[in-house]
């Protein structure tokens, strides 16, 4: 064990093999590009471009959902969090998994039955088109923007770790390459190409994590208890890493707030919701969520083993000292287990992960802009759908350029809060309106608009006035500037109930009544799938 630790310490990332890492990554890019170009040939209609022709099977879509969901933050972040803070890192993955039950039981099938491409399609079914679509597109774009920025910043950090590129120029070049590749994927392949990239990536990621898990368990005689013992033996915190408290012990309410956003946010994430439209029926949407739950659940069990494995085989101090910090736990564990070849493989997967997730978010944002803002608000639904797809393609380029600029701009900033913020906004602005419009007959346009803008702005304002922005050493503005009047780093515990409350308040104070005929039609169609959008025949 000491020998392995020495190995991890001597083989610094600069001494790992960047050429090997890059070759494996290029092989992934080559394979996925071929897939994207082949699948892009059949992109004729809006349904092809936005929803992959609704022709994916539940199993394929389940893999794609897992690919979308298991971002670099999930893979590198959770393994690292468990390796360094033990049990507290594990609590993250539980929220991320349980959240899928909200999607499975309450949202996925009904959404598939009532809408076409975007979340706003569901909300505007029986409410006023203009204001509701604009609000829904605003929250969608906000969530996508936070998520995208976090992923691009992660790309820069990963580079320094995996390729041994430490200077700012080198990192900027890699961020640009990632952004440019993503634009090509989404422009050429549309939703179909993006989905295939997700499927390939999810498959590789889960296989890779599974192999490492078996390896770690084999070293520990296939006993979880032995693994925990060996992690405790080398940890500076000793037996404390096996119980909650290392990370959130000082501020438990902050953890409760985060946990709420995680469990309620997933079913409101626009890029997750959009995946339900790529399958032909509600039954397939159900199957895809079931596959996603199994794959994501299995993966998070692997991360538990990998996290404690990294703690015992690499050591928390080594991980924190490495370039890339806690994010380096999984790659360093790969190096300790299988040498440069396994490190290269895992690094390539991590890159592929960023690429695939960024592509998925971009097509979601572009669809929402083109379909909701351009198609329905500007053109009032009278525009040509082909023009809409053209607008979507241009939006992809704009978002890609913004993502590259943002990714370069935020390098070195501590912006880990952005993913938590994306979940908080999804839970406070999107989920209340989705649930109300599906299940509450008296919900009105005013309720929807109040809930979405209220949830969005309260989540953002609370973050700005939280310790994330000012008042502590780790804040964005440092300890010197202090306007942190809100004591928690996670706004969910306030903004989520507020989103639900505003939706109720806006509805009961509405003077105009919504059309009861449309409400009845929506109730019947959402539960039965009558008149749902069919798959595209080629």
């Amino acid at each position, binding site marked *: 064990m000491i020998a392995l630790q020495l190995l991890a310490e001597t083989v610094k990332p600069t001494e790992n093999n960047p050429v090997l890492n890059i070759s494996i990554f290029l092989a992934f890019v080559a394979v996925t590009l071929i897939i994207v170009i082949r699948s892009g040939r059949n992109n004729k209609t809006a349904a092809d471009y936005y929803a992959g022709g609704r022709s994916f099977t539940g199993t394929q879509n389940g893999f794609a959902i897992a690919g979308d969901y298991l971002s670099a933050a999930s893979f590198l972040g959770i393994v690292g969090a468990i390796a360094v803070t033990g049990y507290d890192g594990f609590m993250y993955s539980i929220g991320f998994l349980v959240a899928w*039950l909200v999607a499975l039981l309450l949202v996925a099938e009904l959404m598939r039955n009532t809408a076409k491409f975007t979340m706003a399609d569901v909300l505007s079914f029986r409410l006023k088109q203009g204001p509701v679509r604009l609000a829904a597109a605003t929250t969608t774009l906000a969530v996508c923007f936070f998520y995208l920025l976090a992923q691009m910043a992660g790309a820069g950090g990963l580079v320094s770790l995996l390729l041994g590129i430490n200077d700012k120029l080198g990192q900027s070049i890699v961020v640009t390459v990632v952004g440019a590749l993503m634009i090509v994927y989404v422009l050429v392949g549309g939703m179909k190409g993006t989905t295939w990239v997700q499927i390939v990536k999810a498959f590789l990621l889960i296989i890779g994590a599974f192999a490492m898990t078996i390896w770690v368990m084999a070293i520990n005689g296939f006993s979880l208890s032995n693994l925990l013992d060996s992690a405790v033996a080398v940890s500076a915190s000793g037996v*404390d890493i096996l119980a909650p408290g290392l990370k959130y012990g000082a501020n438990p309410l902050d953890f409760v707030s985060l946990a709420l956003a995680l469990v309620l946010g997933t079913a409101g994430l626009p890029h997750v919701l959009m995946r339900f439209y790529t399958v032909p029926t509600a039954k397939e949407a159900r199957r895809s969520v079931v596959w996603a739950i199994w794959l994501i659940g299995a993966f998070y069990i692997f991360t538990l083993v990998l996290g404690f494995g990294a703690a015992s085989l690499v050591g928390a101090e080594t991980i924190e000292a490495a370039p890339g910090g806690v994010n380096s736990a999984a790659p360093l564990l790969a190096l300790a287990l299988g040498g440069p070849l396994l490190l290269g493989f895992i690094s390539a997967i991590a890159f592929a992960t960023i690429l695939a997730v960024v592509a998925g978010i971009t097509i979601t944002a572009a669809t929402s802009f083109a379909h909701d803002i351009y198609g329905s608000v500007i053109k009032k639904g009278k525009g040509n759908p082909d023009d809409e797809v053209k607008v979507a393609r241009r939006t992809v380029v704009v978002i890609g350029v913004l993502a590259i600029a943002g990714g370069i701009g935020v390098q070195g900033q501590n912006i880990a809060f952005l993913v938590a913020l994306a979940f908080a906004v999804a839970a406070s602005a999107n989920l209340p309106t989705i649930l109300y419009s599906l299940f509450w007959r008296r919900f009105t346009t005013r309720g929807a608009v109040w809930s979405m803008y209220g949830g969005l702005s309260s989540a953002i304002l609370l973050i700005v006035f939280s310790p994330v922005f000012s008042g502590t050493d780790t804040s964005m503005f440092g300890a010197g500037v202090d306007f942190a009047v809100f004591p928690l780093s996670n706004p969910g515990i306030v903004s989520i109930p507020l989103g639900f409350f505003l939706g109720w308040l806006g509805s009961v104070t509405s003077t105009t009544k919504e059309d009861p005929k449309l409400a009845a039609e929506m109730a019947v169609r959402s539960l039965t799938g009558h008149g749902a959008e069919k798959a595209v025949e080629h």
Partner: protein
Amino acid sequence: MSEAVRDAPPKSAIDYEAYEKTPKFLHMKGTRNRFVVPLAIFFLVWYIAYVLAAAYLHDFMATPVFGSINVGLLLGLGQFVTTFAITMSYVAFANRKIDPLTEEIRGELEEMEKR
């Protein structure tokens, strides 16, 4: 062929307000709600109970059960187990009880639209 952007749902021959009150539809809706609502409440309460225990009951969570495996780890893995179990039971229920009912209703609605 491109599809038109739908502004309002297409006008249809079906009186949905009346259909919503037919025994067949109410039966399907009731069956679904009686299964899904208690399940959703159960998993949310159980998750929040776990979160509160993890946030405030550190010593309880640290109690060893066997070997180095403690209460916290078992409860955490328990969340995985219940998530998988709820998923399987919902799918079995939906495939067996709900799908035949919705298929029948869809057929009926399509007939009504043809008239």
